Structures are given as C-alpha cells and as structure tokens.
C-alpha cells in the first residue's frame, strides 16, 4: 500500500538497479531493436504520406472508395472483435472451469488460427459459406448471404481473432479464486448476479486486452478476407486490399495515404483501449 502511494507520488525516474545487472544494456538493445523493426518502417510511411502535402493527402484519403474500404475494415474488425470477446470469454471459461473428455484437444485447437496460413482459412471458410457450401446452402433459403458480403469478412475475422481473446482471458480466469464465487453465494447472490457483478468486472482488463488484439489483427487481416469477401469496391473491399490494388496500379501516393490513415486510426483506437485498460487494471488489481 505504501509502495503504491510512493510510486504515484514521486517524480518519474529510471528504475533503480535490481539484483540482475544490465539495465542499460537491456534498454539499449530493446530500443535499437524497436527502432529497426517498428519505428523505421512506420516513420518511412509517415514521411512518404507527409511528402504528399496536406491537400493532396486529404483528397486521396477522402476518396469515396477509400473511405468505404476503411469503414468496412474498421467496422467488420470491430464487430468481429465484439463477437470474439463474448464467445472467447465463454470458451475460456469452459476450458478453465470444466473437465471433459477432449479438453486438451479443444485447448490446442484454439491456437490453430494462429498457425494456419490465413489463405487456407479463407478458402476453407469460403467453401463452407458459399451459397452451395455446407453452411451456405442452409442459410441461402433463409435469404442470408454470408460469403462475398461484409458478413463473410466478419466470419473470417472472427476466425483469426478468436485465440487472442481466449489466450489473454484464460490465465486471468485461472487466477480467480473459487472462494470469491462461494463468498458471493453465501451473501445470497444468484448465479447470474455472481457472474455479472463479481466475475465479469474482474475480467474486464484482460477482456479489453484480448479485444484490442483481436481488433488490431482484424484491421490488418488480408489473407483470409480476400477469398471470402468478394472484394466488390464500395461494398466488400477492405482497406489492405485497396492498398495492394493501388500498388499494382503504381499509384504509390494513394497507397501511402490509405496506409497513413489506417496507421493513425489504429494507433488512436489502441491508445484509447490502452488507457481504459490501465485505468481498470489500477482499479481492479488483476494482473497488475
């Protein structure tokens, strides 16, 4: 408690050396690495976009096709991340709390979307959801079209984003003491109240992290989406695809402009999510 108070009240400073030496070296290597891998490519992108000039950049970024592509990219990624948050938490719960035959297999299967080439996933999903596919043929009579529509994009993004939520929530869930649930029950809380008032709020920070990761992955996803999306301009064309199209047309300014906008939007959204996370982590204590 005292340590916590001290941490917030003192001025910012380098962390004091601990028993493990090499702070300077570790920090130096980390910064150099980050610079080479992340910062240089990103600043190159920013430099290219800024060299366009503001009016040119705005014109390219506000082009109707670009705006539509960005809306579709961020919109579908958001919906997919929300769906993943709900079902990912549920799946993690089942994996943490219940014992059933085949549990290890299911646990391992959760990671498949990480490992599977995304193109393979895209083709498989398209085959299933196409109007003549297994699932698509069931949905077609109901008038629901999934493949070759934005709904198809959402399906693909749910697939690739699922492990992010499960794998971030799972360890925190394992940390929750069963006694906390028992305490709620002894105080008269129903099962629903225990879940909604006791368990879920505690999982909020981890859930948000998983959501952010799934969302970020969804925004940048390319391989699986292009097969199932149908890629109709203005309807189901995602921003990363549009960048590739512009590049193939040797229209580098347009490509950089779209990329710049994506970078900016992604950074802003992740920043907001991180702030919420830091706040809730400070408050709720899990994983702090």
């Amino acid at each position, binding site marked *: *408690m005292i340590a*916590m108070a001290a941490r917030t009240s003192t001025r910012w400073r380098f962390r004091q050396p601990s028993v493990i030496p090499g702070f300077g070296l570790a920090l130096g290597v980390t910064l150099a690495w980050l610079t080479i891998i992340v910062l240089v490519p990103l600043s190159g992108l920013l430099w290219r976009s800024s060299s366009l000039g503001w009016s040119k950049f705005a014109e390219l970024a506000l082009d109707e096709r670009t705006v539509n592509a960005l809306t579709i990219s961020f919109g579908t990624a958001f919906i997919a991340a929300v769906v993943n948050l709900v079902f990912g938490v549920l799946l993690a719960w089942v994996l943490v709390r219940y014992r059933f035959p085949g549990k290890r297999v299911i646990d391992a299967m959760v990671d498949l979307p990480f490992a599977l080439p995304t193109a393979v996933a895209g083709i498989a999903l398209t085959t299933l959801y196409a109007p003549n596919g297994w699932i698509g043929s069931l949905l077609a009579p109901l008038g629901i079209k999934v493949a070759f529509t934005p709904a198809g994009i959402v399906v693909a993004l749910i697939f690739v984003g699922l492990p992010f939520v499960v794998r971030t929530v799972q360890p925190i869930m394992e940390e929750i*003491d069963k*006694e*906390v649930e*028992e*305490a*709620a*029950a*002894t*105080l*008269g*809380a*129903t099962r629903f*109240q225990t879940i909604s*008032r*006791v368990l879920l*709020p*505690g999982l*909020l920070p981890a859930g948000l992290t998983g959501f952010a990761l799934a969302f970020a992955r969804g925004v940048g996803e390319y391989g699986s989406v292009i097969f199932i999306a149908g890629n109709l301009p203005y309807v189901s064309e995602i921003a990363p695809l549009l960048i590739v199209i512009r590049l193939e047309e040797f229209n580098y300014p347009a490509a950089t402009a779209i990329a710049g906008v994506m970078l900016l939007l992604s950074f802003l959204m992740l920043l907001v999510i991180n702030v919420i996370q830091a706040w809730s982590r400070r*408050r*709720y*204590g*899990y994983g*702090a």
Partner: protein
Amino acid sequence: MEVRVQNIRKEFARFPALDNVSLDIPSGELIALLGPSGSGKTTLLRLVAGLESPTGGTIFFGDDDASKKTVQERNIGFVFQHYALFRHMTVLDNVAFGLKVRTAKRRPPAAEIRRRALDLLDLVQLSGLEKRYPAQLSGGQRQRVALARAMAVEPNVLLLDEPFGALDAQVRKELRRWLREIHDRTGHTTIFVTHDQEEALELADRVVVMSKGTIEQVGSPDEIYDHPVSPFVYGFIGQSNCLDVTLANGEIWLEDRPIGLRAANEPDGPATLYFRPHDVELIDGCGGCLAGLVTASRRVAGTRHLELELGRTHPRVEIELPPERAAFADHTRIAFRPTRWKLFQKGERRITAREEVVVPELEATGT
C-alpha cells in the same frame, strides 16, 4: 440462531471425510472446531454453510431443516481464510454486496444500505477507508472487511474458516481479542475453524476437538485442557508426555520398576500414561518414582524446561519446573512423579480412563 447437526456423514469419492457427526450449538455461542488438517473441521463448516451437501444426516437452523436449502437461502455469513473480497469493488461496496443483491422486495433502500454498511465499517474499526479497494488494505484490514461483509446480511449463523490463518502473529492476537469483543456485542451464533489450539482455547465458549472425521471431545476450554477424554486430545492439546507402562495389581510399572502411581480398578496389561510437563513434583530419594538423566535444560520465560532420558527404549520426557528449583547441570539424575496424569489402556481407541489428582501414597520401601 441455534444450530443442530445430526448424524452428518460426508464422503469424498468413497472416502469418509465426516463420519456420523452430531453437534448442538445453542444460540449466541462462539464455538471452535479444532483439529489437525484432514480432521474434517472445514468440511463440517462448509456443510453448515451449504457449500457442500452431506452424504447423509440433517442440519437444523432453529426448527428449520437447513440441509434442504441452498447456500443462498440459508442466510449465513462466511469468512474465508484468504478473505475472498471482491477486488473490483470498494470496501463499502464489498460490505453492501449482500444487501444489494437481494430481490427488490427484500432490498432496503439505497440510503439505508449505505448507512448500514458504514455502521458495520465503524464496528470493525475501518471508518474512513470505505472508498479504498481491497488491494490497498493490509491483511488484517481485509479480514475485517470480510467480517463486516458477512455480518451485513444479518446472518443466522456466522461461519469463519481459519479466519486468522493468513495473518502474522501480532495481528492475529489483536484480531482474536477484537473478534471476541464483536461477538459479545452482536451475539451472533458463531462457528470458527482453526488448527491453532491457543486460538481455540482463548476465544471460544466451547471447543470441538476433531480427528479423522469424528468428534473426539466437546467441552469448555478448561474441560478440554484439564480433562482430555482420549489419547488424541491429550496429545493434541497442549504439551504432554506419554510413556508406555504396564499395569499389574493396580500398580503402574515402567519396565521393571513401579513408579509409585496406583490405578486400582483397572485391568492388568499394557497401557499408556499421559501427563503434562507442568504437572510434576520433584521428590528426594526414589522409592517408586520416575527417574532420569537431564539431557537438556532450557529457560523459557518464567519456567525451566528440562528434558529427561528415562531409559534407552523410552522417548525423552519434558518437564517444567520453577527456575529456582531446577538448577541442574546436565547428566544429573533427578526423580519426579506426575501429580495429575491419565492412563489409557492399549488397544482401545478411546476409553474412559482413571484420573488421579495429586497425593499419591508414598510407599517408601527404601533403597
């Protein structure tokens, strides 16, 4: 509220954790379940709470059969060893939780809930900390929040599972005294589980000593300490020495010598003699006594602890004497005799044994 446990049996995967246990707890009593780990004390507490369901038997709260009710319906307060506070809620919200989750019909108005929670925080001496989160409190403070939270629902019975087990010695002592005060003031029927005999003897009106899924003895702290009814209780509560002896013609023999204690109405045969280190007297000249070599001598506060070797085949015996009477060098031979002791016949798990208090007749045969 009065709690009656009748013939409770609980098996975990065919292994009996509790075997036909019955216990009556009058309203307002503070009772301790004491035993080593695996004795079934926590299982019994959780059965009363409704966190486990019995394999057989019934539990009554007053005249109601509570064993048919769920945890939620039993209206109990339960305090866990590791607090089990809701860490995303402030201290105030933690305490108010039990009232807030009630159905709209039974829920007091928000202002009333707040007032009651604040009153309870006042009772547990945490006024002013209601806006803190559990992570910002010390262990002792957290356990007090847990107690306030349990009391907020005005429970039929308050159940505490090793409530001070995770705290350091100093805080534990302080909270112990404070819990007694709270109990005297609020008068909730309270059952608490502990493996710390000092805690049980100091705090409880009555102590239930448990071992291997059964109740060994129920009684006031004095009864438990002064009149243990079984070898287990004798060995578990306080310090004790035990010696393998033989009984012949009403006299107790250690190996080939009588030790000057008589147990007239007991059948002959091997038995075990129990006595406490402080219930001994030194005697001069040994005609029927225990005698041994001093192997170690330690001064502990107001008494001196002597470790004696009675013979190669016997375990060492420890006795406590006033320091001025026991300034012996190592390897001196001293003679003593238990003033209070108890004999348990071999082979039987629990017997009513004879107890002798003071003044054994000296049969001075001279050596």
